[in-house]
């Protein structure tokens, strides 16, 4: 029944329009300035077909539905680190041949050129992004105090008064609370796995509980800070960078205790455009394109060689300013940074999320 329907539909469409010579592939991504940077760096320079971007809200719900019903609409998806692992484990993504991807000029293979180990054969390197606190440059000056510098300062509402904007899920907040409580960034996951570690994080979160405004969409923290609703907020570093670089906003970003997250591209299993999608992935993951994305957004390329190109060619941003100070992956920024551990979150994420939801409502 379904097949005959598909056939009729295909015939009708085939009769109605002349099929384009080159295939179109659909890429699901997060929208906004981020998708724009992918459009400019990857799609506009891609000669093997047309890549159409659509927005999605994250999660693998849609992908699982498409794959399991055998009706795959998306070819490529831009996924978070834990989804990259769960989706590959569950067989929702294609496992890709690794030797087809572009090595560096020195002949280092793509998988050896990434800043973190490649977790499985499904993923293709994209970027690093981070959760990071920021505030308006004049916020704490006008009150005649010193300005916040560290993650501990973010959690210190006595010396740095005003509300805090934080997100409605627990990822990164647990890590940040522990860093603020004095745990060195590199030991955060050891503490989280040990008895009492999570309690310690929630105890730290309790100290700002009464001063918190929650946000759930990426543009919100900027509105909250801009309107003065909060004095400091956590946000995606790319959103802050976009406001500073393109709109000239005067913000201060504190990289101390930032939580870096991987972002990968994957191909949806059972896609009808395997060859074109693979060609696009090869194109998008090459060092030049990785670096090219940095012309449009301050998310750090996942490939070391991509970052090297940017560093060597500053000013790199399209408006003619230096982009590296806005990247999360600089030496200074990484000084006390936490790299999100997706395996820990895959194991404990649901339990922590329930606890966090309960905490929010208390």
């Amino acid at each position, binding site marked *: 029944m379904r*097949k005959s329907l598909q*056939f009729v539909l*295909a015939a009708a469409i*085939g009769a109605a329009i002349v099929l384009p010579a080159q295939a179109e592939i659909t890429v699901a991504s997060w929208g906004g300035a981020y998708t724009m940077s992918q459009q400019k760096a990857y799609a506009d320079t891609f000669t093997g077909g047309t890549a159409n971007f659509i927005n999605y*809200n*994250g*999660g*693998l*719900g*849609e992908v*699982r539905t498409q*794959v*399991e019903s*055998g009706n795959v609409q998306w070819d490529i998806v831009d996924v978070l680190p834990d989804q990259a692992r*769960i989706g*590959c*484990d*569950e*067989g*929702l993504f294609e496992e890709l041949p690794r030797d087809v991807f572009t090595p560096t000029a020195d002949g280092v293979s793509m998988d050896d050129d990434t800043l973190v180990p490649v977790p499985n054969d499904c993923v293709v390197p994209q970027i690093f992004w981070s959760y990071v606190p920021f505030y308006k440059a004049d916020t704490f000056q006008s009150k005649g105090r010193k300005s916040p510098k560290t993650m501990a300062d973010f959690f210190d509402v006595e010396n740095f008064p005003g*509300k805090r904007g934080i997100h*409605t899920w627990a990822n990164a907040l647990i890590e940040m609370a522990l860093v603020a409580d004095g745990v060195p960034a590199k030991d955060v996951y050891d503490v989280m796995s040990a008895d009492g570690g999570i309690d310690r994080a929630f105890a730290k979160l309790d100290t700002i509980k009464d001063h*918190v*405004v*929650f946000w*759930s*969409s990426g543009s919100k923290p900027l509105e909250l800070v801009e*309107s*003065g*609703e909060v004095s400091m907020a956590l946000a995606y570093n790319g959103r802050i960078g976009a406001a500073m670089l393109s709109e000239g906003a005067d913000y201060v970003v504190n990289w101390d205790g930032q939580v870096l997250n991987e972002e990968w591209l994957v191909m949806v*299993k*059972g896609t*009808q455009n395997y060859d074109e999608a693979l060609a696009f992935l090869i194109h998008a993951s090459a060092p030049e394109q990785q670096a090219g994305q940095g012309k449009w957004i301050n998310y750090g390329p996942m490939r070391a060689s991509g970052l090297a190109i940017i560093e060597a060619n500053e000013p790199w941003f399209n408006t003619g300013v230096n982009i590296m100070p806005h990247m999360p992956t600089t030496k200074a920024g990484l000084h006390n940074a936490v790299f999100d551990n997706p*395996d820990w979150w*895959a*194991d*404990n*994420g*649901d*339990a922590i*999320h*329930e*606890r966090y*939801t*309960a905490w*929010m*409502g208390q």
Partner: protein
Amino acid sequence: MAIANAPSAPILTADGIPLRVSLRRSMRRSKLRALALVLPAFLFLVTVFILPIGNLLTRSVDDTLINHQLPLTFSLIETWDRDQQSLPEEALFESVYLDLTTINKFLIANNTGANVDVSDVAWWLKIPPKGPYKDSIVQINPRWGEAGAWQPLKQIVDNSLAYRGTEKEQKNVKQRATFDLCSELTPLNNASCRTLFKALETWDGQSVPDESLFAALYKDLNSAQKILTGKSSTRMNYEEPGWKGVIRTSVRKFKKIEGPPYRDAMIKANKGWGEVRFWQSLVLMKDARTMGYYLNAFDRRYDVDKNIILRSEERRVYVMLWWRTLILSLIVTVGCLVLSYPVAHLLATLPLRYSNLLMICVLMPFWTSLLVRIVSWMVMLQQEGVINDTLVWTRLISDENRLPMMYNFTGTVIVMIQILLPFMILPIYSVMKTIPPSYMRAAQNLGAAPSLAFLRVYMPLTLPGVGAGVILVFIVAIGYYITPELVGGKDGRLIGNMIAYHMQKSLNWGLGAAMGTVLLAAILVLYWVYDKIVGVDNLKMG
């Protein structure tokens, strides 16, 4: 007498067919025609309503996947004396090892639940990883030695090859067939049996299957096994956090285990196998049907003896969310009713040219995008927003004590009331419109004060509209999700947001489905109560 006998011969119509038959025939024809008329609506209902809800109900109790993954373990787990708080015997370790590393379960005919025959040596036979495969696979299940076992698979391949269309369509049909092959052999519909497809292409469909077919079967079943394990580990992690990591590292390291005894080697591969809590959680996943998701939806769970107990304190969140959803829906419904009743009355009684204008004012927001309305409320209500600014300017509150009206329960209530108002106004208005003004005048003529006339005459007449509005608003409010997500903040998020989280992010569809089912049941109960109290016949939607 003669006349009385006559009717025993059947009455015939003009063409000699008995009247009864002819009548029945024409009745059947008109019935068929009527059926054909309702058929599209019926099919629509089935596909968009009944099937998804059925799917939802099944998912909320279904636990078959994990039974396909661990058939041998589950058959033997009752042998473990779990009250001792000690680890199981070697036999159970071995069965877990076999379930996770061998593909025998896909090859044996009776391979799940109570069908598993643990005395069958097939479960313990090992296929040599480097082949030859045929002998050992046939030993596990002799059926695979006959062409008959392979022919249905060959049929799938042949069907896809027979498809005619553009090159691309043919390619896609072939690709679908590789998935169909795997779903024939395994409980998965997202595994692709590419190797087997190629091997079957060259097989003639009659001759005794040769080694190449078995090698392909072995390879594809092994990759399907990997996917099944991935999905199972997601399921197991719901029951006991940490399972995902245990399975992930185990699968990698188990390959290096040479042979029995397995116990120490497994604990060495991952220390989780040495923890009783993981073994206890296996007991809870044993049945193919589970109430576990429903228990979870009410912050409860099974203990190892299948007694229902409360979940650990910091994970109790759902009961609170149910209450909050219920209370918020009630507040929104009452708020809507209080605001709507006078508006509807005005609409029904004003002269036409004013009432039309008012109607547009009611409908205008209804036609405006939901997001636009939510965002404008944000501008109004936030701490640096219009209302707070006005209050500070008029010195009603001080600058330090701005009212928190957004990103909390209050904000959600205010925005939802505004959004749901038309659902209340319109049914009430449509009923009020039909009440002749003379009734009120008659009541007052007969000596009733205006208030009494309103209470005894007018208000009872509007009840069908009020009932419809209340039901509409309450049902929409109880499942609301977008507004709470955007303005809910700390204590304005509802059960709908949790369902969305489980459907999209955690992929715990079982729990999401269970909560969805509870929501559906709550609405049906409400409808039933309404029917008992007011009577559904009285409902007037417009």
